[in-house]
């Protein structure tokens, strides 16, 4: 398996595909800026910019009709400076290797910032879940896992779930590795069902982490709450947005806006979040929910008056087109890259702090990491222990970002990237270049 020379790869998106930036371009531009400001040596910079290794495999799979389908699979291992690789596994009909590269890079920086001894990775299979039966998907995942056996393992590379591949996928992967190893090796896939060694508290770990970070930010930016608590708008109602909205009610906040795929609901006096959540659990969406609110589009919801705006759905929703119209005091990114780089600059000019996803949603990978620790030691922590440790990691990360931001006089996004890049560069300097 020869590592690919990424700089010569024409498929690597150097230019944004459209007018707006892709999350990958956002990542790269931030990293370039961070490295430049840190005066990282050019040769070291080259190491950090390229994935360490990319494995490309073909996955022959017997389909439901008896014929053979051959699918493409990848695992991109971005950087092993700090420890084993870890990163998402994704299943999608239009999966592209450059999207995995971006994801692997993001994970490296996120782990470095959270002080987790992992490097970033990302992988997946290009297969459409709508077109194939669960049995075929399972076969493909098992074949994918066994083709990667030489480069994965608890000390080499561990998988974490993605929106497209839930805990069932982690269980299959862990089973394949265990059968080959001749012993149960549950630390190879994280975010597993609790019965197979999954960590307690992993289902709402991102939302809980965001609440911790928001608490720290409120104190830091002295965001006082008027009567009825801080007014928050949460875009997205899935495991991140939904759990966040539910949790915020307990944190002296008033959730004034929520949304899902079908649109947003807004009431400046606050929404009955528990009732809306129950409705969505039962009906699958907020489309026909009843209550005291105004309906509007997702785009309009982002522009409503509030104290905290939490985009937790998809990337690139806050762009130069709407950044100067936001009426919030703080943005906290729940999704990966909802605020584009140019929008981030506009918000900086307006004095609206943006807490980057790299920090704000890292509660998820932190609890994934705890699962790995628990699997290695054979323990299972009580939920309270998971929460306590998660709080400590996030608090330390928050403090390092705030310090970096104050000392270097840069916005939070860049400050966070600089902390991460500096840590990884330092690890590489210490280790040196082998042979």
């Amino acid at each position, binding site marked *: 398996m020869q590592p690919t020379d990424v700089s010569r790869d024409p498929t690597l998106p150097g230019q944004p595909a459209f007018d707006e930036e892709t999350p990958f371009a956002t990542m790269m531009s931030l990293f370039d800026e961070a490295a430049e400001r840190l005066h990282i040596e050019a040769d070291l910079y080259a190491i950090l910019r390229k994935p360490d290794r990319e494995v490309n495999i073909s996955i022959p799979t017997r389909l439901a009709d008896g014929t053979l389908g051959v699918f493409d699979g990848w695992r991109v291992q971005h950087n*092993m400076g*700090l*420890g*084993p690789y870890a990163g998402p596994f994704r299943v999608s009909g239009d999966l592209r290797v450059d999207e995995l590269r971006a994801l692997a890079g993001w994970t490296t920086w996120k782990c470095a910032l959270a*002080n987790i*001894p992992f490097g970033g990775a990302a992988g997946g299979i290009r297969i459409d879940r709508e077109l194939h039966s669960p049995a075929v998907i399972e076969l493909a995942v098992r074949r994918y896992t066994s083709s990667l056996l030489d480069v994965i*393992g608890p*000390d*080499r590379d561990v998988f974490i779930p993605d929106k497209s591949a839930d805990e069932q996928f982690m269980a299959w992967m862990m089973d394949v590795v265990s059968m080959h190893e001749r012993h149960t090796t549950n630390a190879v896939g994280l975010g597993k069902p609790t019965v197979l060694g999954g960590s307690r508290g992993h289902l709402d770990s991102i939302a809980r982490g965001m609440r911790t970070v928001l608490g720290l930010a409120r104190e830091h930016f002295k965001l006082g709450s008027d009567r009825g608590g801080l007014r928050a708008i949460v875009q997205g109602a899935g495991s991140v947005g939904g759990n966040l909205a539910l949790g915020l009610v307990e944190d002296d906040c008033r959730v004034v806006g929520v949304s899902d795929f079908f649109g947003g609901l807004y009431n400046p006096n606050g929404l009955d979040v528990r009732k809306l959540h129950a409705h969505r659990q039962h009906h699958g969406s907020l489309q026909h929910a009843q209550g005291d609110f105004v309906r509007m589009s997702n785009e309009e919801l982002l522009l409503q008056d509030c104290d905290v705006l939490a985009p937790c759905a998809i990337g690139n929703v806050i762009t130069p087109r709407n950044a100067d119209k936001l009426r919030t005091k703080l943005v906290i990114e729940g999704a990966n890259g909802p605020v584009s780089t140019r929008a981030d600059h506009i918000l900086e000019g307006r004095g609206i702090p943006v807490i980057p996803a790299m920090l704000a949603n890292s509660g998820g990978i932190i609890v994934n*990491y*705890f699962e*790995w*620790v628990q699997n*290695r*030691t054979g323990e299972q922590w009580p939920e309270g222990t998971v929460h306590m440790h998660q709080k*400590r990691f996030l608090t330390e990360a928050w403090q390092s970002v705030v310090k970096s931001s104050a000392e270097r006089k840069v916005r939070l996004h860049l400050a966070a990237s600089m902390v991460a890049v500096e*840590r990884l560069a*330092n*690890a590489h300097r*210490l*280790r*040196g270049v*082998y*042979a």
Partner: protein
Amino acid sequence: MSTGTAVSPSMSISKEFNPFEAMAERFELASDHLKLDQGLRDVLRTPDRELTVAIPIKMDNGTMRVFTGYRVQHNFSRGPCKGGIRFAPDVNLDEVRALAAWMTWKCAVVDLPFGGGKGGVICTPSELSQGELERITRRYTTGILDILGPDRDVPAPDVNTNEQTMAWLMDTYSMHVRRTTTAVVTGKPIALGGSKGRAEATGRGVMLIAREALKKMGLKPEKTSVVVQGSGNVGGIGAMLMQRQGHKIVSLSDMFGAIYNEKGLDVPEVLAYLKANRKLTGYSKAGAISAAEQLELPCDVLVPAAVENQITSANAERIKAKLIIEGANGPTTANADKILEKKGIMVVPDILANAGGVTVSYFEWVQDRAGFFWTEEEVNTRLERIMVDAFNAVEATAAQYKTSLRIGAYIVAVGRVAEVYKLRGNYA
């Protein structure tokens, strides 16, 4: 952390000043108390394995030079071997052997699941470039790779090696085994799996042991005056932590001389002065005295935390302290020991008193294996528990066998290794 500062046997003037002879003598005494048979004594005395490797290196000027390196694994019945790697021109196999044995006893006395090991490369680091040192480290590591590993042998820094050396070793090992293996070495930078609290570990251990010993003697920290020989990682940090406990630190020293103020020194201020001026002499709030005078000052506690052979048959009679805590390795000679015992001065031996360093090295290994890192408070709490337990075990053993704490410590250590050996039996 330096785990052994003893000079090589060839440099000693007489038997009294050879710390390895002294150690061998103490081992024999402990074995007598334990009534070990001759065969078991031979097993425990002999290193399990010794490896000598040639280290060919391309020098910066393009020529090739071949250095010699050693790794001695003294005894691995209690667990993987643990011990430093030193780079020095006078490294020799005899010295490395003796230091490896020393590590076996030190690890056993604080009950760490480690055996003793030691390694070294014959070279003069001051004459080598950073690149040459890196290549020596990597080639040496490759040479001993088969006997290294988190479950086999875990090196640490020693004379002329540091965090950076350990990082190179860890990287070389990791590339060979195809996975990042931080637990193969300790004393790493925090960025690569090092432990919090390591820099002050030995000094903290000294403070804890002093506290426990004084408790036994019925003395309160606020009522004791302390003389510290040394002002580095062990002496300086030890003095600072002891002052925080309420002790009055009346004297500190460095390689140029000592300072004394019977009313007590402000240790952080003295250390800041030392850092700025590179020597203690000239510090205005204390008088200057000689190194020899310092040891004989009136005080309650004397902490020799610099080099070996400081308290000898020549000055032991004039020591006024009630308690001696050996921060350095081998500061008291065997002859001096006898005089101090007669005078009723309690001596807490090096293998117990300065074991705080290797204990936090052990914590680093534990944290690396789990992949989960403790807060500094957690490290300190666990260190305290281990040091207090070890002190109590040594104290009880010394009382049981009616012997000094030093021989008590050796009885505990040799007894623990012998017990494990008997339980495991002789393989094949």
